[in-house]
């Protein structure tokens, strides 16, 4: 009689509708490939919408009878994840619940203290740490000594030392090529490197993943070729922080994507460093099938840009938008309301700048002070007040009070709605 694996592991992601968690795909692919777990651990992934009732999430998990439940947490799904964990704990008192992801990783000890249903948090890159955690649990050992894990020990919350970042990203098996994640119908998410060349104060990317590490070109090309065979695939989404990291890399990616672009497959909202885009780069993006790009400026206020350590050259920015527009690529310009250093006049000047630039699409969002970011750490110093509960929305800044921030949000939403209303 097949009694199933000794350790049943259920991985849960509460995603934006239609999305599948690439992060869980990596974690699962790595663990499935770990010899210590081979034949002993079985994996199942639940990719659910963030709007799903936490009681239903708990029901789905409980029906699978897991020994370990791993959930990935962002600022957007944290409340739902915590609700689901609380219910799962009541239904399955002995299950081991472990969290990971950018929302909990930098504040692991606080999370364990405030969420009694949670047993452990995996900090930083999850692949190696999660696999070792599972191996430790299989051997009946306590998890609190596993590098990169924060767990409970003798009634205390204890953090083991940080784990080094994975030096060779190719040591992580491809979640697509191993079948750890099924390509979603319509679009496929691809990551070609980790880290970011920028250190923007509001962003986790540059701080959380440190230096830039790339997957090999052969690996990326194999994934793209595999995904391109997916029935109904219409687009790729590259989650790299900067698609045009270097000109040489852009040339390579353009060549990789060109055959699929000719078949009508498009790349949507790739993030670019627009100030390094001229006619040549725009042409390469066009060749790759890029239909739209996403970029800043986030703010045009000199003080906010300085505090956030973000460069902005107005002329080069405008030139980049014009080059892309000439190539028929739609540009989404993003602005953040509530950056420290920005006055109401600065925020409105930013709105005026992007509206007059007429990039094709505007996106205004309110600052979320994310755990682990530079602004999170310097909040008091720069005069930021924010909601300590996720998604950590800014409450006020030294320059803009609570009420005016809410007004600027509403004004920004109105600008977006009016901007979109066109032939």
């Amino acid at each position, binding site marked *: 009689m097949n009694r199933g694996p000794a350790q049943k592991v259920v991985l849960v992601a509460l995603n934006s509708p239609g999305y599948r968690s690439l992060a869980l795909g990596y974690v699962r692919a790595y663990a499935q490939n770990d010899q210590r777990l081979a034949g002993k651990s079985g994996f199942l992934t639940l990719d659910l919408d963030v709007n799903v009732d936490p009681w239903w999430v708990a029901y789905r998990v409980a029906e699978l009878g897991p020994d370990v439940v791993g959930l990935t947490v962002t600022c957007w799904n944290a409340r739902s994840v915590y609700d689901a964990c609380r219910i799962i704990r009541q239904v399955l008192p002995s299950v081991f619940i472990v969290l990971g992801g950018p929302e909990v990783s930098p504040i692991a000890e606080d999370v364990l203290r405030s969420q009694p249903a949670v047993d452990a948090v995996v900090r930083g890159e999850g692949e190696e740490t999660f696999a070792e955690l599972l191996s430790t649990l299989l051997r009946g050992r306590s998890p609190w000594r596993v590098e990169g894990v924060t767990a409970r020990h003798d009634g205390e919350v204890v953090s083991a030392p940080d784990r080094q970042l994975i030096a060779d990203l190719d040591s992580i098996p491809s979640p697509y090529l191993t079948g750890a994640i099924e390509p979603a119908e319509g679009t496929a998410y691809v990551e070609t490197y980790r880290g970011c060349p920028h250190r923007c104060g509001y962003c986790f990317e540059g701080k959380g993943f440190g230096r830039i590490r790339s997957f090999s070109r052969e690996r990326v090309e194999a994934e793209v070729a595999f995904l391109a065979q997916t029935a109904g695939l219409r687009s790729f989404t590259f989650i790299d922080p900067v698609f045009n990291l270097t000109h040489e890399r852009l040339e390579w990616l353009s060549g990789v994507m060109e055959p699929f672009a000719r078949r009508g497959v498009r790349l949507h909202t790739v993030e670019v460093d627009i100030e390094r885009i001229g006619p040549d780069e725009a042409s390469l993006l066009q060749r790759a099938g890029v239909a739209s790009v996403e970029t800043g400026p986030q703010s045009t206020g000199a003080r906010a840009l300085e505090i956030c350590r973000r460069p902005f050259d107005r002329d080069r920015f405008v030139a980049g938008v014009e080059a892309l527009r000439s190539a028929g690529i739609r540009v989404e310009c993003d602005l953040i309301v509530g950056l420290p250093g920005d006055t109401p006049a600065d925020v409105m000047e930013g709105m*005026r700048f992007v509206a007059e630039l007429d990039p094709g699409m505007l996106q205004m969002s309110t600052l979320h002070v994310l755990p682990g970011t530079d602004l999170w750490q310097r909040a008091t110093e720069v005069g930021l007040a924010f909601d300590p509960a996720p998604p950590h929305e800014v409450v006020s800044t030294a320059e803009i009070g609570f009420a005016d921030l809410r*007004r600027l949000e509403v004004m920004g939403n109105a600008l977006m709605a009016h901007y979109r209303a066109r032939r």
Partner: protein
Amino acid sequence: MLRFREVSLNSGVEAACRRCVGAGAFEATDPSPAAPEDVPDSGSAHAGDAGVFLTDTGTLDLDTLLDHVSRVSAATGVSRIGVRASGSQLADVASAHRLLASGVRVVEVVFLGSVPERHDALTGVPGSFARAAAAVRACFDAAADLGVKVAVRGRVGLCAHNLQEAPATVMHLAELGVTSVVLDCDPGLDVRRSSEWVAAACDTGTVNRIWVAVKGMSEASLGDKALHAHDVIESDGGPA
């Protein structure tokens, strides 16, 4: 922000308080409204203009209004054409459908009150409130039918006769789902007596996630609501 060139069609204000300007204010202010080909400057848009806004359409029938839209569209090539209306031209989905199909993407409908009794009494036109509200709904329905994005703005002409109803009027517009509201303050309003009501109307918009822009009051008079002196649509010389 989004700068629109305002073009008057000289065909009467869309709706105004007849107690302020006398009986017949809702009628044409010009006995001979402009023919499309006679409207000055309607064929030119300035560089950097996000669109063109047609105003003073009060007595125009829909066909004539569409002629104007067509001419402006062909002459300027702008991607956004706005129309300010009383609602009488657009009170049914078929009319709104024709307007949006002609290329109009911003529709501003004038309200003078939050209830029919007040609005109709001030315009002097029975049924005008119901038509204005129907026009807003018709624009959204037509946009959904056509699969286009439309911005519907409420424009509230504020005077001494409806000042205290400003918050309720903004609330009514929020319930109708408008994209933003302009409070167009009569120059004769006593700033000291009116600022409290204008402020309450602005707050009503904010808590309902609708931007309320105030025209005709300085930032200084708006006090801690000074941001509301700014609009997302600006015309030559200030908020539209």
